[in-house]
């Protein structure tokens, strides 16, 4: 997969995304929109596209960073409890501050997802059996435990309805004023690029890192903060998007290798293209209704995940 194909696909899909929807907006009308069209375009279509792109890019990069730091190809925000912890954090913020502002929610959810991810990394250190497939299973179990705690408290407090909004990723609710928080993740991508070499060296193991004079703990901490914060932002604005951070980095790794500095732009591009594709698919399959992105990515992503598991033996 050449990078320029990805760029072309990204542009085409982005363009398509702007003009798919219930309100008929055609690219030919671009310069003579009526009021309604203008409003839909700027209040809904553009924010939706931007949030899709940011979510796709940050989740994929987060996945890549996690796979390097945990030294396991199958660890990602979905399979390490990061997303579930973020959701637990949202619940806690809803319970503590009854009408939590977005910023409050973000901070509490971030703290929880960071703590959850750290906890998973600690569990990882303790596990003696470093079977590559065993570890994401532990992560999935860990995530499910946190998720069931969330459900328990949500049930007690009559918040199930509220929480389900964050259970399934859905871009159809994105309108101007509800997604801008995602912009916070753009500087995170820049930091990820600056730290790319450090993450890769950390991924070679603690001894390797020390030999090369790298501050291993610092690299791991920076990586986990990037992962936890960008995941939190996506969960808060869009909802859970499973498997993206798993499938995209693995595909890129196969054709481009694991030197993060080389792979970062491919990961970002492929992540954006993949999620855009899934979103457009979800929008046209049962037109004029929509299938939420969490579901389309979940189905296509888990299929690809199984495929990766099976071909794993060939190149591992």
């Amino acid at each position: 997969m050449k990078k320029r194909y990805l760029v072309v696909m990204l542009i085409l899909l982005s363009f398509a995304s702007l003009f798919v929807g219930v309100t008929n907006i055609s690219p030919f009308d671009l310069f003579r929109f009526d009021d309604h069209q203008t409003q839909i375009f700027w209040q809904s279509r553009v924010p939706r596209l931007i949030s899709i792109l940011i979510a796709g890019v940050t989740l994929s990069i987060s996945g890549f960073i996690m796979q390097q730091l945990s030294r396991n190809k199958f660890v990602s925000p979905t399979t390490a409890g990061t997303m579930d912890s973020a959701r637990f954090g949202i619940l806690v913020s809803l319970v503590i501050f009854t009408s939590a502002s977005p910023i409050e929610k973000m901070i509490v959810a971030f703290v929880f997802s960071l703590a959850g991810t750290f906890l998973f990394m600690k569990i990882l250190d303790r596990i003696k059996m470093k079977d590559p497939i065993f570890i994401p299973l532990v992560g999935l179990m860990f995530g499910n435990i946190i998720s069931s705690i969330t459900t328990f408290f949500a049930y007690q407090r009559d918040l199930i309805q509220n929480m389900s909004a964050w259970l399934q990723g859905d871009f159809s609710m994105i309108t101007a004023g509800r997604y801008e928080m995602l912009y916070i993740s753009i500087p995170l991508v820049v930091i990820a690029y600056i730290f790319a070499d450090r993450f890769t060296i950390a991924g070679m193991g603690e001894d390797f890192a020390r030999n090369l004079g790298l501050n291993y703990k610092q690299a791991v901490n920076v990586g986990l903060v990037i992962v936890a914060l960008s995941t939190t932002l996506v969960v808060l604005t869009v909802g859970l998007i499973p498997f993206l951070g798993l499938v995209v980095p693995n595909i890129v790794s196969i054709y481009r290798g694991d030197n993060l500095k080389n792979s970062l732009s491919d990961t970002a591009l492929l992540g954006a293209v993949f999620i855009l594709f899934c979103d457009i698919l979800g929008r046209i399959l049962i037109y004029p209704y929509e299938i939420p992105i969490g579901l389309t990515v979940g189905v296509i992503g888990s299929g690809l995940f199984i495929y990766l598991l099976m071909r794993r033996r060939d190149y591992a």
Partner: protein
Amino acid sequence: MVEVQAVSKSYGLKAVVDNVSVNIEKGKITSFIGPNGAGKSTLLSIISRLLSADTGEVLIDGQKVNETKNRDLAKKIAILKQSNHLSLRLSVRDLVSFGRFPYSQGKLTKEDQVYIDEAIRYMELEDMQDKYLDQLSGGQKQRAFIAMTIAQDTEYILLDEPLNNLDMKHSVQIMKVLRRLADELGKTILIVIHDINFASVYSDYIVALKDGKIEAQGTVNEIITSLTLKQIYGMDMPIKEINNQKICVYFS
């Protein structure tokens, strides 16, 4: 000079390295030999600060290792451990490039590229520099790791069983490269090595460990004698001189 002063390290009740003191001269190849479990690798890890000693000190050029900044040490001393299991798919060249990290912190300069090219040439990896590590054989991988260590361009190079997985041709190639690094560039090389004939032919100084203690140390002529080797390994081996080199015949 590396000064190891009364270093001890235990795991549980077992003392793996037991009150070891040794001085290692600059610009020489020093081999650490001894039976399995003698504490050679542990000692090397302590010298290279990957492990910390329970008691005792390691000084490199008069500076205490555990009080020197990690980043500065990375320009002075490089270590390659025994098993290098990478789960990352890196190309040979990328791996060797990471050897420049202590200097470049990620931004490779032209000078860095020169070192990288040179290290790749030293290890004869030119043809496969763009291949991924997981496409290489065990020996090729090992050479790539050693190339990375060479690119790190440190005064001290510590290699834990560098000849693992290598056939004779490549074992000889690596020992010759190490010899050149010591003779031409004045590097100080410390290796843990199992094949005592390689130790005999290529090293300047030999340190023999047994049960965590130094059993013997000295020049090749002092250590490679039937008597000393019997003390170390507990087996009789005749020593033949071939082309002025002492070869141990330990096959029977």
